[in-house]
């Protein structure tokens, strides 16, 4: 019981220890076995004793009958009395009583009054029939089992047994003093043996159990440690029993586990290495790509910047020419000058757009929470005059959320989309631009839908390219340089989203800006709002 419980702290606490239970069981077994066998032995000895007692009593009875025949034949009470007293001197005789043949007491000598009273109570009144019996009767009764009462007939010495006269009876109680002592000794012995057996069996059992449980606990600890991969404690491997077998199989399992673990570790390591390699490769590729993009943007920026200087000069010179010499130049020359100025202006603005586009990518500005609803409402407000002139109805259908983006870029996106929709509306029967949003699991969609002429499927990808416009009839005669949607796409992609176009010729177009929902700062997902700002 002195096992170190601290080692098993990770085990479920054992409420009924095996050791304790076995000990109790062994104790019970010892008590029952030893007790039962001793009791049986006691019974055996007791019955043996009783038999001896009975035999002795009968023998003494016969002898007494001979003793008392003479005085009875001669009807000499004094002699009878003397004999009686002589017999009763023996302390083993509880009482002696001589009766005549009618059962009347002639004389008696009582040493043990209790026994005699008891005898009288049973046989003196109720057992009249037994009194005339001609055979010795052994009466097994009495509160004391060591006592026997014998009633023996006394016959006259003349004649054969059949013709002899019944003179009377002698009744005596015989107590065997050894009997009682023997039985008591036996009892004491039984208790003593049981106690000794218990005393011996407890430590032996404990010792045996310890021998059994200690290796068991070690194995148990080992099994617990298997999972953690620690070094195993000493195991009872050499035992040639079930425990040894268990220990060996635990060791074997530990080996298998360790092997599996090391294999797993190796696999993990190689996997990690692979991941590291791939990550490094990816990083390198990313870096190259970033560098490339940076170079490209820088190139674009430089080109448009350097291109603008001579253009500026051309424009300036043309204006100065017109201003200074306009009056003295012939009409034809003035017209050419105007054309130069117009072309320069067109190219100039294209370069401006290119610069703007490259700025989106190189200098996006800083993100802040932008209330899209407010922003779009503001744009509609700003375009109110233009929209009104064209008879276009423009409204926000849902309460747009607040998103974390660059304010100027967001403005550019929606200004471009709404402006585009208005520009290409033409003379449609219904002229409406609707802005709404929808929230998917991870994406926020903001749609700008118009009832314009629509864009042919073949043109739908081209509209997002720089300096490309749809080739539909509806676009001709519309002032525009075809860079707006390209910059819109650049912005939306910069936000990590995408812009898609759904359009049907003759029905209308819907530009859908989809950006990651993670950019939403707050979303009012209530019912469609009526705060149309057109």
């Amino acid at each position, binding site marked *: 019981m002195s096992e170190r419980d601290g080692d098993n702290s990770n085990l479920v606490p054992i409420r009924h220890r095996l050791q304790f239970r076995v000990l109790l069981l062994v104790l019970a077994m010892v008590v029952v076995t030893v007790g039962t066998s001793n009791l049986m032995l006691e019974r055996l000895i007791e019955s043996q004793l009783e038999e001896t007692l009975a035999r002795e009593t009968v023998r003494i009875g016969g002898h007494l009958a001979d003793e008392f025949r003479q005085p009875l034949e001669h009807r000499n009470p004094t002699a009878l009395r003397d004999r009686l007293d002589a017999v009763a001197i023996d302390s083993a005789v509880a009482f002696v009583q001589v009766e005549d043949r009618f059962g009347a007491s002639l004389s008696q000598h009582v040493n043990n009054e209790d026994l005699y009273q008891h005898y009288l109570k049973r046989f003196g009144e109720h057992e009249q029939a037994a009194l005339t019996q001609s055979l010795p009767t052994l009466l097994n009764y009495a509160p004391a089992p060591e006592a026997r009462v014998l009633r023996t007939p006394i016959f006259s010495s003349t004649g054969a047994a059949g013709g002899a006269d019944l003179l009377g009876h002698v009744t005596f109680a015989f107590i065997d003093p050894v009997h009682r002592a023997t039985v008591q000794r036996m009892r004491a012995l039984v208790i003593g043996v049981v106690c000794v057996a218990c005393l011996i069996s407890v430590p032996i059992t404990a010792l045996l159990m310890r021998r059994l449980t200690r290796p068991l606990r070690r194995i148990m600890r080992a099994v617990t440690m298997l999972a953690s991969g620690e070094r195993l404690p000493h195991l009872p491997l050499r035992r040639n029993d079930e425990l040894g077998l268990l220990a060996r199989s635990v060791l074997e399992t530990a080996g298998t586990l360790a092997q599996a673990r090391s294999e797993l570790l190796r696999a993990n390591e190689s996997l990690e290495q692979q991941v590291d390699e791939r990550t490094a490769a990816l990083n390198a590729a990313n870096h190259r790509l970033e560098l490339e993009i940076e170079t490209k943007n820088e190139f674009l920026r430089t080109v448009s910047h350097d291109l603008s200087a001579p253009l*500026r000069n051309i424009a300036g010179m043309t*204006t100065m020419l017109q*201003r200074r010499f306009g009056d003295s130049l012939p009409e034809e020359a003035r017209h050419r000058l105007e054309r130069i100025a117009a072309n320069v202006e067109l190219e100039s603005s294209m370069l401006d757009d290119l610069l703007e586009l490259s700025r989106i990518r190189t200098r996006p500005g800083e993100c802040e929470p932008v209330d899209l609803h407010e922003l779009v409402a503001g744009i509609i407000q700003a375009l109110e005059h233009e929209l009104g002139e064209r008879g276009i109805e423009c409204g926000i259908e849902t309460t747009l959320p607040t998103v974390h983006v660059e304010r100027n870029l967001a403005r550019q996106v929606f200004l471009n989309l709404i402006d585009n929709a208005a520009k290409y509306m033409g003379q449609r029967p219904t002229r409406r631009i609707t802005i709404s949003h929808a929230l998917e699991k991870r994406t926020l969609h903001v749609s700008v839908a118009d009832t314009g002429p629509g864009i042919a499927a073949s043109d739908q990808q081209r509209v997002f390219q720089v300096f490309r416009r749809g080739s539909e009839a509806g676009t001709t005669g519309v002032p525009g340089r075809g860079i707006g949607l390209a910059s819109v796409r650049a912005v939306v992609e910069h936000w990590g989203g995408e812009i898609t176009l759904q359009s049907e010729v003759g029905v209308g177009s819907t530009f859908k800006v989809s950006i990651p929902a993670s950019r939403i700062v707050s979303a009012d997902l209530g019912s469609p709002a009526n705060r149309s700002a057109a």
Partner: protein
Amino acid sequence: MSTGTRGGKVSEAVILLVDDDPDYRMLVRDAIESLGRPIKVFECVDGCDGIRFLQRVGSDKSSPRPDLVLLDLEMPGADGHEVLVRVRADHRLRDLPVVVMTGLDDDESERRALSNGASSYTCKVRDTQDMLRRIEAAAVYWTTVHRQLPGASAA
């Protein structure tokens, strides 16, 4: 080297134009001359030339102190920023109005120019009318209005 006429009369306002683009210089000169004011324009072809003119070094010993410097930023040799630093480091030129006029329209360039001591920052916008208006406005302000302000150091 410097081009244009130097050593004009003191009563005229003097503008020094530092820009490596001859066509742009011509344009600015045209714009200023078209104002019809008594303004004399001097031109320097790059930063080094400008610094020599302002500090009256060598052949520029007798160059006049300008009332306004129109300074380009992107130039070979010493660029506009260096000119600004050198001008502000010279105690005689500390109060000289220097307006930066450049094709660079990013915030960083503007911040840098202003912190280096530029009096004002103007972009060479592509709209010709607008650009001419800017040049004219700068010329008029710095050569007339600014000169009359109390505390302004007149040449």
